[in-house]
């Protein structure tokens, strides 16, 4: 294997930085995890906030996202109570900004001008989606679970394009309103891994 490309290098540095900040955010927010509603799945009218990085906890605006990726990890937040719904890892999503022309019809309908959100939980064994990069088969960048190499195409309802995952990631429909991203419905599809037997 060759040494990582500049792109990969940059991703590594960015992610490392993001993880570092996430750790302290996680500790300071321990109390929030017990707040009423924090373990509820994303609800209609929730906004999305950064789950990690320098801006952890801040509301994500469409212009915060890099066109074509990589994705950011986000928690839903109840705008009325200000509770961030980080009480369950099943609530976390990945948000990525794509060219609306690349999206299939179902995906475009759920997107906010090309911005799509999916559950971070891989449908195979419940690991988080942690990588964005070129597909094992094809040239497009895709969502990757590095636990067991499952890959999902965010342009096509996050359908499985590689690996052992049995089904697509659950999608979270979005709209852009008042300069922020708003959840306009509950998850479409099942969140979490398969159960055996």
């Amino acid at each position: 294997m060759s040494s990582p490309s500049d792109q990969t290098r940059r991703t590594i540095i960015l992610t490392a930085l993001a993880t570092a900040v996430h750790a302290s955010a996680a500790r300071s927010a321990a109390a929030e995890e017990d707040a009423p509603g924090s373990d509820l799945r994303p609800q209609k009218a929730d906004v999305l906030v950064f789950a990690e990085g320098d801006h952890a906890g801040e509301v994500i605006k469409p212009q915060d996202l890099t066109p074509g990726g990589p994705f950011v990890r986000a928690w839903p937040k109840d705008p009325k109570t200000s509770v961030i719904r980080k009480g369950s890892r099943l609530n976390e999503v990945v948000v990525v900004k794509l060219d609306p022309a690349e999206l299939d019809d179902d995906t475009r309908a759920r997107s906010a001008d090309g911005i799509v959100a999916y559950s971070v939980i891989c449908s195979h064994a419940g690991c988080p989606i942690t990588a964005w990069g070129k597909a094992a088969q094809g040239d497009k960048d895709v969502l990757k679970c590095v636990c067991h190499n499952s890959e999902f195409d965010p342009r096509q309802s996050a359908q499985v394009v590689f690996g052992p995952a049995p089904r697509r990631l659950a999608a979270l429909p979005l709209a852009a309103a008042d300069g922020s991203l708003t959840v306009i419905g509950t998850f479409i599809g099942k969140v979490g891994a398969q159960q055996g037997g």
Partner: protein
Amino acid sequence: MTMKQWLLSSFVASTCLFSITAIAGPIEKYTPVTADRLKNPEPGNWMLYRRTYDGQGYSPLDQINTSNVKDLVPVWTFSTGVIEGHEAPPIVNNGVMFVATPQGQVIALNAKTGDEYWRYKRQLPDDLFQLHPTNRGVGLWQDKLYLATTDDHVVALDAKTGKVLWDTKVQDYKKGQYLTLMPLIVDGKVIVGAAGGEFGVRGYIVAYDANNGKELWRTFTIPGPGEPGHETWSGDDWKTGGGSAWMTGNYDPDTRTIYWGTGNAAPWPGDTHPGDNLYTTSVLALDPDSGKIKTYFQYHQNDSWDWDEVDAPMLIDLHRDGRIFKSLIHPGRNAIFWVLERKPDSIKYVAGWPYVYTDVWKGIEPETGKPIVDPAHKPVIGKRVEFCPSLWGGKDWPSAAYSPKTRLVYIPANENFCGGFTGEKVPLVPGQLWLGTKPEDIGLKVRAGATHFGELQAWDPATGKKVWSHLFPRSHLFGSVTATAGDLIFVGGTNDRMFRAFHAKTGELLWEQKTNSGIMGMPVAYEVDGTQYIAIQSGWGVDAQRIQDALTTNNIGIENNVPQGGVVWVFALKK
């Protein structure tokens, strides 16, 4: 649908319904498992992980042998209904088979007919993160079974009905604690070891009372302040230093000593946890009554390669250098074939040599048995370091076997693989991966000019000579090996889905059968009503799949169509 088809279907349906009600149900005749039966198992049974406490993976059955193995045919199969890595040996006690599968499932079957008695399904939590979705088998004691789960519980089941008798939480799965091993049963104690080295846990081995699930002792594999060995750590590194213990130990009933292997230090780059890091990458000798550490041997210091040494060493009476002694034999993940001498209060280095190519070790200190590291191939923070073998090692967790008839050790080895990664300092977030590198940065590289990857090897531990080897030019080898008195070596482990039998003395391939999936589990031999059977689970996944994905990414033309989904296969001689 025509009337005839309809009638036929309804006939089949009602027959099936009748069959299910007639056959499924409690086991009426079950032989309780005692201390004596575990110490001296009947030749026809396979009740411990490697059949016997010495971990040799050897069956004394010889009805199936080198002269007739060509007539081996499937007699029944059974679908487990789940995907991912089926790593457990089918456990057999006097005609009853217990099969553990991924997702915490146990299936009780009639070992002769393949008919189901009962099935237990663990209800795993929705938010469980299964990095290793597998299970390596159920332990047996009296009329109970013991299952260790990926949501970090030990569950006792009634062997006759599959009903839960007790369920004990070991630790918190939300913090990356989980279990995949088959519990070791010693004198009414259920002993398990923690997985989670990749989540920054502090490893431990813990024993429960088989009757009620009460915790009896818990021994951390990393000593705390004031305990011997603590000085091999700096600062607070010991709290998150790994040393997980996720494979079943072996046991010497004569000295009442458990030999248990321990995992990598965490996170991976050695300069994040300076020191020798006891007792990571070691074998621990434990008192089964108290969990007290009697002695230990560390296979390498300051692990930096993710080289878990969790596969417990085999206990072999070894003829070497003109004497017979009680040895421990361990083909290490660190590429070294270890010959050690075990005494009640010490484990001494006798000999060691590389059994696959490695560029990490420059030699072994003859007095201490410490391998001498080449710093150029030791991963550190801030730069990419390459090393051979890869992080999966010369042999990962799949077991080697020993035949007391041939006095040879049979290793499912991987040759010509190297790896590398860039170390980085990352703070620990409980429940999240903590490798000290990016998972997507981990490389698997094939050495230039490699003629093969998987290699089934037969070594003479007395002389250090490789007696024979079988090469796999287009696949890695990732499955446990079993030897029988019929001078046969059974192994799966390749991406062509084959199950194979080799001549134990010559390495000649005598028989093979293509199965539904790839095999990464352990073959077993057993006997019911005078007929010998060979059983295996075929179900590819976890690290066999990971290596496969890495190989196909780098090597055009390597088979990547290894379908998942578990099936139990049972073979006997054609009548």
